[in-house]
């Protein structure tokens, strides 16, 4: 086996626990020419705002940006599904020369007339930033004419990374919340659920828990989202933020402007879900009933799932996992959840982790675990084979790499169809992991048929 060389410039973005002093270079721009798994600003904004189902999402740019993001995320809606349509100004050469403002305005008026959406989000793509369309001005005019919030999202692709796109989306959301001119009245025992996108119906599971605890959910940003609900977000007593990168910026804005405190949680795995619910209950400690209900809820839910987890754990004990995620925060929960199943994490990486995140990762991981920032297929292939992983957890671009090497795969990202959050999500996760790790298919692949079991990368 010839081993893969690692990009010299990337050496500081790869760390193997126990081998060298810890100094992770991250939050840097990707090296030009690297086969990075990262996306752009627009992508970040699009995924955050997309689940708002009764809003119009118009992509101002050439057709590609709209085509590639047409209904690719399984963010479920219990009602309207306008968000699943693909609307684009489909800019052509003449628009690039003469500007696309007129076209944008016409398109907006036409669509608002046709669909009567509750609000409209206009995504600026690379080209719009270059040709200098005054999208803000168009939005103001259309808002005036139609009397619905018409909000520009400054998501020009080249203006940074996906993270900057999250921030642009947060700015758009805050601008929507600000349009609610009614005086803010803090609703007792109430929260906003932030950074939860209802993939596979996850929002519904989390909401169910909060309801059982006696917590009032004012809005979910943005899973199964509705414009009117989001506009009420200023009335919540607490922001509960899931998903490290995406909407922390909004929580901070709401803290500064409205004095609403926030906590960061994860609903992935038994430990983190319980912790999240407890922390919310503790926050509302003037209501002792809530803590009692929370304890009961957690006890009941955990008891219900332990037997099936234990059964699956028997097969999974000692198996090795590789994780590559968008935000590093997700990796923390995943490591814990995999430990619940008796599995060990041998590779952990993220596209956009911070120095802080990687320090936490390092502390959580065992000796020898490889930690990666902004990785590429070669590195992912190299280390998962070297570390002899039985499971790879990643997104769409990682899936075929894992399969080509004969490694089981579990999607944690857009393409998962089943909810993985909460207690029942933990069982779903365990079933997915169990299903792929113990599949007889891997006995057929060459990797398991060689004496060392470690062949696999050229």
């Amino acid at each position, binding site marked *: 086996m010839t081993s893969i060389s690692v990009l010299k410039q990337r050496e500081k973005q790869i760390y193997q626990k126990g081998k060298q002093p810890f100094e992770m270079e991250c939050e840097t721009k990707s090296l030009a*020419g690297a086969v990075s798994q990262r996306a752009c600003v627009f992508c970040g904004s699009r995924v955050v705002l997309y689940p708002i189902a009764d809003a119009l999402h118009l992509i101002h740019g050439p057709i590609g940006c709209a085509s590639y993001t047409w209904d690719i995320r399984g963010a479920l809606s219990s009602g309207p599904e306008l968000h699943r349509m693909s609307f684009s*100004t*489909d800019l052509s050469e003449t628009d690039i020369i003469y500007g696309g403002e007129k076209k944008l305005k016409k398109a907006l008026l036409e669509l608002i007339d046709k*669909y009567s959406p509750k609000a409209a989000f206009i995504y600026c793509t690379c080209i719009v930033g270059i040709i200098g369309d005054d999208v803000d001005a168009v939005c103001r005019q259309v808002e005036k004419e139609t009397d619905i919030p018409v909000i520009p999202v400054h998501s020009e692709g080249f203006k940074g990374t996906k993270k900057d796109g999250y921030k642009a989306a947060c700015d758009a959301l805050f601008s929507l919340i600000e349009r609610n001119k009614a005086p803010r009245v803090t609703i007792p025992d109430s929260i906003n659920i932030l950074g939860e996108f209802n993939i596979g119906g996850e929002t519904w599971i989390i909401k169910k828990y909060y309801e059982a605890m006696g917590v009032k959910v004012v809005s979910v940003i943005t899973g199964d989202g509705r414009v009117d609900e989001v506009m009420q977000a200023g009335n919540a007593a607490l922001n509960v933020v899931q998903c490290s990168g995406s909407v922390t910026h909004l929580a901070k804005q709401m803290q500064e402007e409205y004095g609403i405190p926030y906590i960061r949680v994860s609903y992935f795995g038994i430990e983190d879900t319980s912790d999240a619910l407890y922390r919310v209950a503790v926050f509302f400690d003037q209501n002792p009933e809530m803590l009692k209900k929370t304890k009961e809820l957690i006890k009941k839910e955990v008891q219900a799932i332990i037997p099936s987890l234990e059964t699956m754990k028997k097969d999974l004990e000692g198996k090795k996992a590789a994780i590559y995620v968008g935000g590093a925060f997700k990796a923390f929960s995943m490591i814990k959840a995999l430990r619940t199943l008796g599995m060990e994490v041998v590779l952990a990486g993220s596209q956009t982790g911070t120095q802080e995140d990687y320090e936490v990762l390092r502390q959580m991981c065992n000796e020898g675990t490889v930690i990666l920032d902004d990785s590429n297929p070669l590195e992912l292939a190299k280390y998962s084979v070297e570390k002899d992983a039985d499971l790879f957890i990643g997104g769409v671009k990682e899936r075929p790499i894992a399969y080509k090497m004969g490694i089981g795969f579990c999607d944690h990202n857009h393409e998962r169809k089943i909810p993985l959050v909460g207690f029942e999500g933990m069982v779903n996760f365990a079933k997915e992991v169990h299903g792929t790790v113990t599949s007889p298919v891997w006995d057929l692949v060459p990797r398991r048929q060689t004496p060392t079991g470690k062949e696999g990368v050229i």
Partner: protein
Amino acid sequence: MLLRHTPKEIKERKVLAINPAKTCQPIGAMYAALGIHGCLPHSHGSQGCCAYHRSTLTRHYREPIMAATSSFTEGASVFGGQANLLQALLTMFTTYDPDIVAVHTTCLSETIGDDVNQIVKKAYKDGTIPKGKHVIHTSTPSYVGSHVTGFSNMVKSMAVQLAEKTGRANGKLNIVPGFVEPSDMVEIKRIAGMLGIDSILFPDTSGVLNGPLTGKFHMYPKGGVSIKALKSIGDSRGSIGLGEWASADAVRALDAQFKVPCQVQDLPIGLLATDRFVDALRIAAGVSVPDAVTQERGQLLDVISDMQPHLYGKKVAIAGDPDQVIALTEFLVTIGMKPVHIVTGTPGKAFIKRIKEITARFGDDINVKCPGDLFLLHQWIKNEPVDLLICNTYGKYIARDEDIPFVRHGFPILDRIGHSYIPTVGYKGGLHLLEKILGVLMDRTDRDAPEERFELVE
């Protein structure tokens, strides 16, 4: 349902694409470039473009897609992308060791006016491109044409930038297969082989995007046309380009520049188009059609006549890329079906004329739009229902909403397998298509039949 957002009433739209039947140029260029052995496609633009193209191609082919990006930032967008591209070339050749890099532009780099030709020249001069390695490049502004245009542009670039004329005839025939599946490329080579023709097929994604599981991750899989072969296409005795939109530019450029006589044929989908292709091969080879080919033709004709009662007069709606749709429409008309609504997202004046000719027997009864989108197709179907829909995966919304039997064909197919392994070109491909069409039609008959009419033999 999702597409209840589609009203029956049709209004002329000028400024807006809804539910597009196309995507942008760069992804076509990336796909074409993957058809050269040892090639690393490179996207000269923001990171997001490359990530989206890789994700979409990954979903369609279920294979790892390797491509690099110039990772544009705000600075590059202001000062030009030369530094990024030079750095990228250095990174790619030092780390990933491709034999060739195929650069395509994006709307961003096009609009800021990067002179890729000059930058590549500089890189050759500087030695950034190692001796014996190659860089080709093509211009693919996303606001012109579609993914098919991008494919065509890259194929033309690989032809004119790599071909050399030594003056020594190589006795070979160039075949440009068009924007088709790897399976189709294999089939086209097989048919040429049956007629004893020594062909150079380019691009050739077979063995790249439909490779076997080897237990190893190959950055550059075994397939693809070799650079050596591509260099010799200027010495070939002729070229056949399959498809006016995807292949004509390349073969015409070879004709103009290297005096390689060319002809442009329809994609060989269906009986008549395959007949014409085989005839062209026969003439080129100076042989008579071998029995084995006649046998395959006879089998297709046999099945068509056996099943003719199930096909006659059935109304069909088709959306897809122009070369595909033209050939498909002809096939459907040949076998007695009636294509009534036809849409392509890719512009091109000849499309409507060709479709009108093919469907002449139905008079003015046919809806054709170029460029059109799936929203319009859906509206047409609401006004005049059909018995069958042929479209890429995005057709599934319409099929579900209107309850129409549905055959997936084209790009992208995100929810089924088979397309990259089983061809639809040639006589065998025709059989496969027919099997799929009859399968969905007859399943529908069975599903809807009242019990007393639920027949065993059909």
